[in-house]
């Protein structure tokens, strides 16, 4: 490096400034500070790293060139979902999320960071209206973490150490729950699904719902896209055995579907990514956890909770942290799980999204998703060799397509689709071998009728 080049991010590199500062400290070199580190622990050689790209222009060109090796979901038509959704990202949401104030703030207190607290409070408030429950956390990492948190909460509330999950749960999400909940809930048993409807097998649930089981965690819509219509029966069975009902939802469905709290759910979790947050190769996630506003439940939420109050100025809202002693920031290992930097910016973005959409927008969007899904299933069902729908329950946004009768694997089909600039559905053959060669397709409001017809045309051609 030419030491004369002053890095634009390091103002005090200028030799004269550095000398002045050293003089003020009373030392001749920073080595006198590093003398605190014994010689034998010092790293002696130069770091073996690529040379710097100092100009912003060249750096941008360099990174853009690497990114150009990606193919994106605008240039290709994508039918991938399975936890990350290609919903429309409104300009107002990105404008707010890109504001340096929100983007670069951290853990400052409520006076100078008042807007951060209020935006987060409004996010929680919007989720509360969607899910019909009065207590909502500041976001955790993602849906899997939120689901795992609900299982650990249920274990602490009930004093039980087993939990039930449906066979149709996302295996990745299950792996996340399994690892996170392990110390509290070492046993996670699977409840079978009805092979005809794709919904939870209530007889199997009754059998497995013993007095050792803390909770069931199920999802609505399910990972395979079906709307679980038996929520009230599931809740009754679980509550009768003294268990807790934790439900994962796709929040974007709640303009048209009842929230779990209305059919007996105790804890509601989900991910905010679909609510206006860009997919970012999966980086756009943020998990929410909602419960009734009861101390028994609130005491078990590990996340920060932002509450509203009033300040010393009459009529002025103030904000702060509710029940801080719960958290590991306050109580270290005695706390309810750990807490850290999680996904607050995505919560703020989701709050903006829900404020833009309002009740009418969420209803129209949900209706449109139901319509597009039904239409696409109808289109594909007419194609020889395809079995769709695989299950009889109604679908929301996602559905399973079986290709067994085509004699081709999903891998082969997706490769052919890729040649036509289409990302086919997620291959389920590894996760659900019992479904044979099946894929999970997802349609959203970004798809036009032409997109759906083109998918059908191409599939007809290649199957």
């Amino acid at each position: 490096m030419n030491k004369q080049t002053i890095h634009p991010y390091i103002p005090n590199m200028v030799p004269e400034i550095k000398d002045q500062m050293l003089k003020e400290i009373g030392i001749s070199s920073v080595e006198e500070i590093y003398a605190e580190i014994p010689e034998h622990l010092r790293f002696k050689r130069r770091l073996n790293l690529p040379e710097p790209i100092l100009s912003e222009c060249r750096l941008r060109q360099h990174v853009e060139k690497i990114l150009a090796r990606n193919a994106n979901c605008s240039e290709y038509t994508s039918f991938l979902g399975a936890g990350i959704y290609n919903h429309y990202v409104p300009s107002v949401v990105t404008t707010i999320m890109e504001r340096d104030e929100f983007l670069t703030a951290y853990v400052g207190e409520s006076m100078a960071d008042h807007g951060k607290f209020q935006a987060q409070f409004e996010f929680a408030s919007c989720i509360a209206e969607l899910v019909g429950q009065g207590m909502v956390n500041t976001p955790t990492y993602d849906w899997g973490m939120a689901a795992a948190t609900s299982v650990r909460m249920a274990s602490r509330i009930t004093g039980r150490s087993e939990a039930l999950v449906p066979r149709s749960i996302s295996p990745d999400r299950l792996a996340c729950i399994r690892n996170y909940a392990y110390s509290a809930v070492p046993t996670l048993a699977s409840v079978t699904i009805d092979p005809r409807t794709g919904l939870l097998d209530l007889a199997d649930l009754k059998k497995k719902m013993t007095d050792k089981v803390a909770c069931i965690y199920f999802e609505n819509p399910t990972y395979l896209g079906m709307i679980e219509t038996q929520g009230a029966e599931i809740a009754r069975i679980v509550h009768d055995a003294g268990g807790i009902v934790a439900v994962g939802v796709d929040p974007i469905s709640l303009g048209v579907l009842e929230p779990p709290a209305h059919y007996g759910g105790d804890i509601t979790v989900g991910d905010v990514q679909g609510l206006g947050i860009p997919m970012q190769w999966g980086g756009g996630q943020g998990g929410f956890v909602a419960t009734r506003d009861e101390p028994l439940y609130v005491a078990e939420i590990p996340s920060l909770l932002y509450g509203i109050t009033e300040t010393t100025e009459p009529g002025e809202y103030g904000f702060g942290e509710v029940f801080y002693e719960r958290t590991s920031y306050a109580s270290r290992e005695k706390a309810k799980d750990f807490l850290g930097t999680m996904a607050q910016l995505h919560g703020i973005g989701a709050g903006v999204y829900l404020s833009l959409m309002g009740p009418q927008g969420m209803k129209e969007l949900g209706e449109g998703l139901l319509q597009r899904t039904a239409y696409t299933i109808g289109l594909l069902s007419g194609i020889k060799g395809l079995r769709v729908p695989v299950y009889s329950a109604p679908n929301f946004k996602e559905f399973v397509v079986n290709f067994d009768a085509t004699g081709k694997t999903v891998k082969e089909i997706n490769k052919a689709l890729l040649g036509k600039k289409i990302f086919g559905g997620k291959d389920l053959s590894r996760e659900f071998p019992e479904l044979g060669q099946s894929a999970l397709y997802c349609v959203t409001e970004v798809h036009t009728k032409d997109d759906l017809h083109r998918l059908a045309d191409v599939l007809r051609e290649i199957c």
Partner: protein
Amino acid sequence: MGIAKIRNYHQAHWDEPVIFEMSNPGVRGLLPPEVEEEIQAKVGDVYGQLPDGIRRTAPPALPEVSQKHVLAHYLHLSQEVLGSNLCPDVSQGTCTMKYNARVNEDLVANPNFANLHPLQPDETVQGILEIYWQVEQICKELAGMDRFCLQPGGGAHAVFTAASIVRAYHKSRGEAEKRNEIITTMFSHPCDAASPATAGFKVTTLMPLETGYPDLEAFKAALSDRVASIHITNPEDTGIYNPIIDQFTAEAHKYGVLCFYDQANLNGIMGITRARECGFDMCHFNIHKTFGSPHGCSGPGTGALGMRAELAKFMPYPVVEKLPDGAFFLDYDRPESIGKIKGFMGSAGVVLRAYAWLRMMGPDYLRECAEISVLNNNYLQKKLEAIPGETTWYAKGHRRLEQVRYSWEKLAQETGVGTEDIMRRLGDFGIEHYWTSHHPWVVPEPFTLEPCETFSKDDLDEYAAVFERLAKEARENPDFLKNAPYRCAAHKNKDPREFDDPAKWATTWMAYTKKMGRK
């Protein structure tokens, strides 16, 4: 340059209503795309397929606000936040509030990143796979570790993932039942206790010696073959570097204990000293701190978790690998993996920003970054030590690296003004409220400052001048400080005890209106 100016500042104060108070029935903010008539005609009544009890009957009471008013509302709220890019945020010690470059935001907004689905075929995401691979290579060199996992969503999550790997490692050796304890120190981040506790370990927290240094003898006494791992920070949150850190790891290894190095405080030692040479088996970097990615009001972040080769088989799946022909792929075939700790590949946007930042640095500027951060810190310390009432706690005669835990104990004794009063008042000068300390407050009336390489000498002079003024105010008019702030977006909360009262707390508008009897 010259005389430090104390600003005659006032933050925006919009007295903004909660957005639900701006709602008027029928007003719209955004319209979803219409469903084409042919689709509507073909599918008919889609609600017909839904049995009773599943179709939503009462719509969610979301706000009904026009687009302009939603935008204005959130712009107002943003102006009521002191992001670190706006102010000399030396304040949030342990957080490394460095400049978050705008160009990185442009890169994250690029459709070739923003609009990538994580389940796209590997051949369509070669760019982002390469970014992940490259960041891993850079982290490896900075730590001396053999592999890095970029999936954890923050530092505490990386510590949790490390604890999960510790569990898997001992299980693979048939020792999981026996080894159920971990050791940490009081000046390591609380997550070094809480994350392993969440993973099921019993936690021993060692108090420091009177000098502030970790206590080797107490550490040796705590070691046994029941200990699974140690989780320790260095420099600790006091800014003090433990010069015998290698003795801690050597002692631990005698008992077959794994050593995890919490390197959230990496900034002052990049290229100066590494985890491997200090004897650690695992470490983590907070790349949303040290590598210039923004904190986002507390996430998304990434805790890059490094480890020695023999632990790599336990990493969360999938793992980015490179084929001999240079192509990258996601390897899901990891039979001994702990499974998943986060959906997909973690906070990819944070990793992409870190890549851009690291490439703008290269080997020498990374080191320069470390050197200037310790220079800045020692300069500010010198200035603050001239202020009556301030004390630098512990380790007299030793220099701090990138941050310092200070104390206002003397000031509090003399004036009754404590660290929280000063903290609130700081906001009146356009400076973020500072970070006091993690709990418990071992150092009385603590505050922790970290003037990383981002800050200019002028920033530091301004910062010190404000502190001098505050210490003076404390003596001249202590009540004024106790009721601060006056020029921030909001005032001091009237009764913070409400936040601990179930009858009064409210984390949502739904709860608030119910408890206040409002509509």
